[in-house]
């Protein structure tokens, strides 16, 4: 029998009972959908992390103050006030293989420029910040060490802020007002776009750390210290040296724990990736179980079908169908059902991935490989679980089959 005849015969058989066929396919549909969705979420997380590392630089090390515990309640990382500008200076002077170090403090506030206003993040830092954070100045210039020393009222805008405060352009040289303090705009940063997780990195204004402390917040400590190691290989050494230095700076005795936390951007992202990948793994487990259940469903319905169509099988044998013709017919039928389920599953997987990225804001990436894998696992399920019923059909005795009531 030719392949086209086998396929059309199988298709006809499935059309006889559409709802039954669809219900049988359900396991496969869910399984394949889960395969594709889980791989899309996993790949999306990976891509987002890579993008983040790329935009921040893999050599970035971030120090945050340790947490304080108040009455048994931990206030979380960064709630202590142990990091100071002195620590920044000490690191710059003493830790080898550091290509840049910058403090960073931030506050959120309303900013006004003429008739426009915008709510954004105001970061306070030093001239090393563009190097450390992988930023480029698109227009104008970044502020200098002199600006920091003189507590200058100057600011550099992220591209989102510039676009909202100065929709017509001409930001550089203009004046903006932050907390009633006028600032002169020195430059605009080149856009970095969103992080892989959807935060707009360009929605920021940076000012000298001294101005930030004295004019805007009044705080003498810094929220974070960012260090850029000279190369990916020196990151570990820099972390080590920085930790020892800060313990000295903070006069910690050997029994006291660190009052700060040092993290490498790669570590931070690894944790994030791991979380997302755990979810993806869970979905993958659902996929495997679902395919298994789907396969058993197919086997079950094919056994029913073989029994229902015993006389048909007998007739096919009587008119010259050999065992392998019958085997092939039922195997192709199971395969067709599995593949149809696989196709619907692929559609569903793509749909789920889209919904996840829209509703949960998880980045998703649907790869051709995941679609291929999903479809092939459906087909494999069909063949594996369709074989036994097909085998039973092929082994029927033609006389018994013809007489079957």
């Amino acid at each position: 029998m030719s392949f086209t005849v086998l396929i059309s015969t199988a298709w006809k058989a499935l059309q006889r009972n559409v709802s039954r066929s669809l219900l049988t396919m359900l396991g496969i549909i869910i399984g394949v959908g889960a395969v594709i969705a889980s791989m899309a979420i996993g790949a999306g997380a990976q891509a987002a992390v890579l993008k983040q590392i790329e935009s921040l630089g893999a050599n970035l090390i971030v120090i945050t103050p340790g947490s304080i515990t108040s009455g048994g309640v931990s206030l979380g990382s960064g709630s202590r006030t142990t990091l100071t500008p002195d620590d920044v200076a000490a690191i710059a002077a003493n830790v080898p293989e550091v290509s840049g170090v910058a403090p960073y403090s931030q506050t959120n506030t309303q900013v006004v420029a003429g008739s426009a206003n915008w709510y954004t993040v105001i970061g306070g830092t030093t001239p090393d910040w563009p190097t450390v954070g992988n930023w480029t100045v698109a227009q104008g210039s970044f502020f200098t060490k002199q600006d920091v020393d003189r507590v200058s009222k100057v600011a550099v805008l992220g591209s989102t802020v510039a676009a909202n405060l100065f929709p017509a352009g001409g930001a550089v040289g203009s004046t903006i007002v932050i907390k009633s303090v006028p600032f002169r705009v020195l430059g605009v940063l080149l856009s970095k776009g969103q992080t892989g997780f959807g935060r707009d990195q360009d929605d920021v204004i940076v000012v000298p750390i001294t101005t930030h402390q004295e004019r805007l917040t009044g705080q003498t400590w810094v929220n974070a210290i960012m260090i850029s190691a000279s190369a990916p290989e020196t990151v570990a050494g820099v972390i080590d040296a920085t930790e020892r230095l800060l313990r000295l700076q903070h006069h910690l005795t050997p029994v006291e724990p660190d009052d700060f936390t040092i993290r490498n951007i790669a570590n931070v992202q690894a944790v994030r990736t791991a979380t997302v990948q755990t979810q993806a793994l869970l979905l993958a487990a659902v996929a495997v179980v679902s395919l298994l259940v789907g396969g058993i469903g197919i086997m079950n319905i094919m056994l029913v079908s073989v029994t229902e169509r015993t006389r048909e099988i007998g007739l096919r044998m009587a008119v010259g169908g050999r065992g392998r013709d019958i085997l092939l017919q039922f195997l192709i039928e199971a395969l067709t059902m599995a593949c149809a389920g696989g196709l619907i599953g692929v559609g569903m997987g793509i749909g789920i991935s889209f919904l996840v990225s829209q509703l949960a804001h998880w980045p998703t990436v649907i790869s051709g490989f995941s679609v291929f894998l999903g479809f092939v696992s459906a087909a494999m399920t069909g063949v594996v679980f369709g074989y036994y019923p097909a085998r039973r059909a092929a082994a029927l005795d033609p006389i018994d089959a013809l007489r079957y009531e």
Partner: protein
Amino acid sequence: MEQSETRAAGAGAALAPEGESAPARGSLIEVKDLTKIYGEGESMVQALRGVSLSVSHGEFVAIMGPSGSGKSTFMHLLGCLDRPTSGSYVLAGQEVSGLTRDQLAAIRCRQIGFVFQSFNLLARTNALENVELPMLYAGVPQRTRDERARAILEQVGLGQRMDHRPNELSGGQQQRVAIARALANGAPLLMADEPTGNLDSASSVEIMTLFRHLNRDNGITIIVVTHATDVAAWTDRVVTFRDGLIIDDRPAREVTS
């Protein structure tokens, strides 16, 4: 016209090889000492106890006998649906008693057409496709299948009902579709098991007339298993079974007159 040519070719291929000492018209079926035993030990049933029979090309034979006489078993053996316990069965010059399942399937495909009491047409499948079914297993290409199935359906008088499904046809029409299907691969031998058992008398006459015509005009050898003497009356020769043996074998007119 084209149809009879196709069938003639099929029948020609089935002829016994030259030089074999065959009866005048050439022997299509040569059965010697055929036995069939079901089960073993206490539950052993000896369905056939040593049957010998010779059927020539172009004969129209009725096989009769009460139920349990072994006529159905004999029919299954002749139809290559089953294998004998012992004895020899030569069909169209080929010894088939020792063939494998697949080899028997190939014989059924090319040499034998079946007509059943309950028609056994594929449901939800139109007449044309039902007739094409045996040709699928014979590996006949699509175009030839279609042409041949149309021609045969014309021949059995269903030219206007080719796209009707079995449930849209009367019993007599369904049986004619089944006969067309049995003829599809040009088999020289047609085996019918109670072909009129589910039909009213008018349809029965129709079907037996068709058999008569296929036998006389197309030279098809037909073996009908029946318990009805009025069906046997349409044939030329009546073979009667009892207790797994042939007890009678004579011209039909002597039995049914």
